[in-house]
């Protein structure tokens, strides 16, 4: 195979593109700028860590099923871990979100980084809501009968039936977590490609500014 043929292969082109955009030293850097030393990023990492625990405990719940998580001490424990890791996930995510909003973290071509964060948040809210109606207890029955009126009022009830436990469980354990995990991974890759947003300049130079007296 000639070198020009190798150059035309999609694997070669994709590898070169990835190497150019995200070289290994950028993906796993040794150092970060001084302004990254902020608690706001600790809450970003806490969100990711909580997501890991949510997924891990969710996998255990999926293995054993509702009778186990409602009817045994170990099941209650894993069920509670799943709930409280979600609480920590949202708590940390909101603090991180507020901090990044205050920093206007979409500056410098970071729109996609910001938007992946926003959509991850929305996907996570939907995951939590479908989790409420998938508990298979009186609480989930009550929430789903209340939610159906709201969903039906939007016209989406024919496609997204909150009283359909099977459908809600599939959204909760397959589609929405998949979206949340893929978006989180994309968010982190974008942070690595674009870097963390620098602080506002103390005395920004405003080009073409009109002098008023």
């Amino acid at each position, binding site marked *: 195979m000639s070198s020009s043929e190798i150059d035309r292969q999609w694997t070669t082109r994709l590898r070169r593109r990835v190497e150019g955009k995200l070289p290994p030293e950028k993906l796993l850097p040794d150092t970060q700028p001084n302004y990254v*030393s902020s608690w706001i990023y600790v809450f970003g990492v806490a969100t990711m860590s909580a997501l890991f625990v949510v997924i891990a405990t969710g996998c255990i719940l999926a293995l054993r099923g509702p009778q186990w998580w409602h009817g045994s001490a170990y099941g209650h424990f894993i069920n509670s871990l799943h709930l409280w890791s979600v609480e920590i996930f949202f*708590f940390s995510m909101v603090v991180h979100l507020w901090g990044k909003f205050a920093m206007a973290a979409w500056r410098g071509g970071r729109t996609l980084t910001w938007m992946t964060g926003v959509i991850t948040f929305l996907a996570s809210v939907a995951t939590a809501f479908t989790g409420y109606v998938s508990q298979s207890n009186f609480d989930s029955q009550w929430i789903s009968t209340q939610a159906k009126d709201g969903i039906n009022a939007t016209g989406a009830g024919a496609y997204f039936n909150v009283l359909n436990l099977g459908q809600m469980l599939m959204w909760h354990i397959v589609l929405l977590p998949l979206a949340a995990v893929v978006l989180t991974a994309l968010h982190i890759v974008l942070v690595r490609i674009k870097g963390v947003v620098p602080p506002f300049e103390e005395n920004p130079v405003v080009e073409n500014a009109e002098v008023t007296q």
Partner: protein
Amino acid sequence: MAFILSFAALIPLDSLGHYIHWGWVEISVANFIIIVLMIATFIAAITAPFPGRRRRKENR
């Protein structure tokens, strides 16, 4: 187990939830506490010094 039960007894989970009514605003006490904690944590996150930051600045 006894410790866990005594700790759980501090929060009566069998009773009705408590709600705050303020005009048209209605929020459960639990949710209100969480929001206050989030705001307090956010303020702490942007004001509290980050460990080692001063040392790194001096080394530069």
